[in-house]
């Protein structure tokens, strides 16, 4: 296929949803069906275009396949002073796969939303909101797709921020709810903190190489600009510093420790939003970013930090997930945990596995979220799992889809999750073996998380679909949604099968088209380390697979014991842990408490208020009016205070300051007695005389 066509397609892919956004926001409410078909159709067209790109990529079947084109967007330079920002499109294997995944998930989620966002009679509950929901979704999709095709950090960042905005708008979509409003601002602000890091990283990058383009970055890396000691920042090499700062963006966007707090709250948004933004795409964009700049991270030796944060987040979130009762919260923590996996994978150098897990996770997590949406829809917006139970019979499509997706996330063979997770665990194990010491913690974290994941996901399935219904009223009315609601579930469940990603029938063999096509950039500077990382995976492959199978089975089994067969009472299981553990988990390890209560309410706001007071009282009144206060105090002793205070009621300003006080003392001088005036004159003349004599003679 012509390359220029591909570029055109690539540009059209985000533009179509963007156009849909504008149509929707302008005239959405006046269109038939509130224009949901505009958004859905647009993203479907994008999907078709994405398949074209994918097939072109597939046809080339070359790990270093790249189609790129760039333009100058802003040119600040004039003759002899070139400063410009180029933006462009870069299609390579990563972006082609990502495009396909994003457009597919987005299409399905749009479709799902056409059902989910209506009430049970098929009416959009609130006309305006229905249309704007789709407009936001479209804007979001456009931004996400724009991010994927960016060949530079600048447009990537712009799209990144717009996604943040959409996330903000969609989390706060139920705007009559305070909790939604709080969650939205929390999400935006938390990610913004990370984004600032990213932004600073970009600044440093631009200062260093004068460009944002990945190609330029790779070239500069190869030229050693990033490692040149004279470019070091704060004693770290440029690569380390920039890599770390960019990784900050990921920490915010992909909700890694310590900025993970926003993601669970983001579940205040409608469920399709959770599926699209907070599971499949936006949060994955953070991982996509570090995959893109993997060379910088590698060269800068930031990877251990990445691995540490990823591993820690994975475990830590998984533990929280166990105690959640809200069906979406469980999924949210599981998302956190899985994102941790991806980051961990990259941290131990497994570029391919990280991206692999990103894709597989996107598919099954989107499926899981939509299933949960389907359940919630069926239960009339009841989200507490303790009120569910036995739904398997009432909503079979949902049940089976969810079951498959759960197996996938739990890492059961035959499913995509098994393959990707296995690659990660293999690398981690190899890494641990190679480095020893503390890096074993990563290994422990990886495997424990795998077990816990299986445990809490099956807990969800058991509590929701098995056992007895706890809320008969809702249970009786529960029913499957229309085709537009179950079709996406089934499709995504189907895509969670192993074969999709390998292309061959051996369910235990991860090697396939995906691993062949998705390879780290072929940079000489990376060659050695990439080879080393491949060694890790190779070494750890077999033991990891066995171990992961064991822990996954154990997790599922325990889950069955406790929640399925109820052999062990949940309370007893809970009772074996000391109280502080519960307390910590219930309070989400006190992160929210710390950020909101301590950092913001006790730190930031008093600080802000303090400055306001300073502004009012010191800068304003102190420098302008306040000197008057000082003067007042001084004058008070000589009974002038009345004059000055009275004056101040309408004087304030400059007049309230020293001048007025002086003016009042002049008033005392000017007491109406002409002899006083004359005395003043005579004395002043004499003083002047002596003064001038002193000066002049």
């Amino acid at each position, binding site marked *: 296929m012509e390359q220029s066509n591909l570029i055109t397609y690539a540009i059209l892919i985000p533009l179509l949803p963007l156009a849909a956004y504008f149509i929707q926001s302008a005239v959405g409410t006046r269109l038939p069906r509130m224009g949901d078909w505009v958004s859905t159709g647009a993203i479907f067209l994008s999907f078709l275009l994405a398949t074209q790109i994918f097939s072109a990529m597939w046809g080339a079947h070359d790990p270093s396949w790249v189609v790129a084109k760039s333009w100058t967007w802003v040119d600040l330079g*004039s003759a002899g002073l070139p400063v410009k920002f180029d933006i462009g499109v870069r299609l390579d294997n990563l972006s082609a796969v990502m495009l396909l995944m994003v457009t597919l998930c987005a299409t399905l989620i749009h479709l799902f939303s056409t059902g989910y966002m209506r009430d049970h009679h098929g009416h959009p509950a609130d006309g305006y909101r229905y249309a704007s929901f789709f407009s936001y979704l479209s804007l979001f999709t456009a931004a996400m797709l724009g991010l994927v095709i960016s060949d530079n950090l600048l447009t990537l960042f712009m799209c990144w921020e717009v996604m943040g905005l959409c996330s903000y708008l969609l989390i706060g979509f139920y705007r009559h709810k305070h909790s939604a409003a709080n969650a939205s601002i929390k999400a935006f*602000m938390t990610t913004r903190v990370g984004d600032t890091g990213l932004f600073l990283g970009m600044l440093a990058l631009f200062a260093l190489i004068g460009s944002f383009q990945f190609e330029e970055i790779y070239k500069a890396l190869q030229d050693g600009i990033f490692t040149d000691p004279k470019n070091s920042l704060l004693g770290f090499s440029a690569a380390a510093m920039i890599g770390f700062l960019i990784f900050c963006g990921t920490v915010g966007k992909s909700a890694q420790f310590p900025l993970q707090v926003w993601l669970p709250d983001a579940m205040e948004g409608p469920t399709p939003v959770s599926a699209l933004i907070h599971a499949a795409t936006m949060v994955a964009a953070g991982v996509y970013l570090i995959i893109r700049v993997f060379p910088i991270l590698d060269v800068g030796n930031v990877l251990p930090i990445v691995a540490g944060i990823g591993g820690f987040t994975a475990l830590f979130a998984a533990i929280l997930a166990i105690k959640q009762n809200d069906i979406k919260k469980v999924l949210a923590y599981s998302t956190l945990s899985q994102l941790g996996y991806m980051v961990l994978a990259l941290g131990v150098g497994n570029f391919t596995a990280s991206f692999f897990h990103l894709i597989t996770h996107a598919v099954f997590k989107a499926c899981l979220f939509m299933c949960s949406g389907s359940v919630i829809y069926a239960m009339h917006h009841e989200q507490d799992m303790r009120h569910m139970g036995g739904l398997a019979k009432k909503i079979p499509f949902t049940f089976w889809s969810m079951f498959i997706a759960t197996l996938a996330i739990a890492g059961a063979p035959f499913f995509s999750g098994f393959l990707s997770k296995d690659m990660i665990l293999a690398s981690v194990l190899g890494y641990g073996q190679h480095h020893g010491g503390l890096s074993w913690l990563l290994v422990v974290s990886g495997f424990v998380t795998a077990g816990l994941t299986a445990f809490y996901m099956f807990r969800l399935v058991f509590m929701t679909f098995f056992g007895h219904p706890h809320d008969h009223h809702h249970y009786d009315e529960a029913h499957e949604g229309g085709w537009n609601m179950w079709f996406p579930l089934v499709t995504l469940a189907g895509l969670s099968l192993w074969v999709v990603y390998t292309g061959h029938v051996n369910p235990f063999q991860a090697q396939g088209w995906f691993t062949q096509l998705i390879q780290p950039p072929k940079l000489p500077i990376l060659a050695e380390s990439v080879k080393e990382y491949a060694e890790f995976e190779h070494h750890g492959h077999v033991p990891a697979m066995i171990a992961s199978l064991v822990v996954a089975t154990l997790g599922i089994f325990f889950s069955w014991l406790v929640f399925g067969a109820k052999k062990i009472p949940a309370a007893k299981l809970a009772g074996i842990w000391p109280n502080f553990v519960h307390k910590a988990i219930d309070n989400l390890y006190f992160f929210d408490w710390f950020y909101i209560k301590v950092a913001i309410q006790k730190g930031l706001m008093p600080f*802000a208020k303090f400055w306001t007071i300073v502004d009012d009282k010191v800068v304003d009144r102190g420098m302008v009016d306040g000197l008057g206060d000082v003067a007042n105090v001084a004058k008070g002793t000589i009974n002038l205070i009345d004059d000055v205070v009275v004056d101040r009621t*309408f004087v304030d300003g400059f007049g309230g300051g020293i001048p007025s006080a002086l003016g009042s003392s002049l008033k005392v001088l000017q007491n109406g007695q002409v002899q006083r005036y004359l005395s003043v004159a005579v004395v002043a003349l004499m003083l002047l005389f002596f003064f001038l004599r002193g000066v002049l003679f």
Partner: protein
Amino acid sequence: MSHILSWLTFFPLIGAVVIAFMPSRMDSLVKWVAAATMAVPLVLAAQLLGMFDQSSTAFQLVEQYDWISSFNIQYHLGVDGLSILMVLLTALISFLAIFASWNIKKMVKGYFIMLMLLHVGMMGCFLALDFFLFFVFWEVMLIPMYFLIGIWGGEKKEYAAIKFFLYTMFGGVFMLIGMLALYFFSADANGGVSTFNFLELAKVDWSQFKVAIFGSQFAVDKLVWWFLFLGFAVKVPVWPFHTWLPWAHVQAPTAVSIILAGVLLKLGTYGFLRVNYQLLPDATLAFKYALVILGVIGVIYGAFCALAQKDLKKLVAYSSVSHMGYVLVGMAVLTPAGIQGAVLQMFNHGLSAAMMFMLVGVLYDRLHHRYIVTPEGKLGFGGIAQKAPWITAIWMVAVFAGMGLPGLNGFISEALIFLGSFPVYRTETVIMSIGIVLGAAYLLWMVQRVFLGPFTTLHKDTSTGALHAAHEIQEITGRELIVLAPLGALCLWVGVYPQPFINLMKNTLNQLIEVVK
């Protein structure tokens, strides 16, 4: 069209005279006459844009006549890449301000005459190429502004008006002294003839002059730089000269706030670039770090103050302090990205702040109060999004433009400023980046409390002053849209494709950097 710059500046005077002689009962006609009058500069500005040669760094469309010969003062107008954007902004904002003041009831004639005089001052300032002329226009603005705040303002209008006046006058006299000093020293370098001409003054090598004050020697340009700095800093306003701003904004009527934020504040930074940079490059180079520090303080400080505000308009006012801080930093770093970002930020802030003040006015017109949190500690607004989605949507555009969201104008200019400043002042830039987070914080927190959540909006009874629950909020009206739509569209345009705007200024500004360096 010959003398287009003069027409651009002085045409509203004709309208002012016409209005002055209209019978005072024809209030609505007065408004239309005002609108028609102010449309002319807008059209002229568009025409000017067509006549403007982007590739040239020289002053264009110059008009030069002798004015006061005993001082060698000239009537000297011209436009270059630095001023063209500001001229466009001024024409636009002045025009929109007429519509923003449609519901003025008190002394309508006087109000519109004052607006027109204000236009003359602002436009003249941006176009003047003679320092003296510049100063005259600068001071001419004070009087209409004083009356506009003082007569048509809020409860504490007198205080705000006099505060504004005093501060600006205070800065103005310093500027006057600095200006005269330059004038006199220019004689020695200019063939014995003193001059106020910017072009002539720019050629002078100031380093040769020293002046003794109380026995110590000072370099003239360094000293004068600070005098001029004071004059402009008050207008920007640079921390710590900013305290008039919240007062002036809060008390001023909507249209005046729009003009104040949209144009007047830019005059300060424009003055820095036009005067301090062009005339005193050595001193600028020596003191640029002060600008950076004050700018960073302004960014952070303004943001913190905005965070704690309980009055909607005050919040927006402090956000102006914060945003103008970026401009200072951008211009001080002397990199193409920084300085162009700074000028673009001036333009952008003009758009987004004008929008926000208009929107504050929209809410105030409907609810007669501006409490985010009332004195009793209740939320003054809340859930407006449910009743008035369009108002909310436009607010969002303004808010996101203000906090620098990509796709809207604020991002471009802020990003340019950061890009320009990072290589030069790394630590300061990093500190300044806190401002990004805080900027999002105060704006979003405001949005949350005002527009989201359950509908708890209060309405103030103008007769009794009591607050009680509002039931409905009228949606945006056509007149308000006339004001907001062009601003919003421009915000988007600059955000997506800023190159046309950058083309207008880049050659001039890059040359300015060369001059200073």
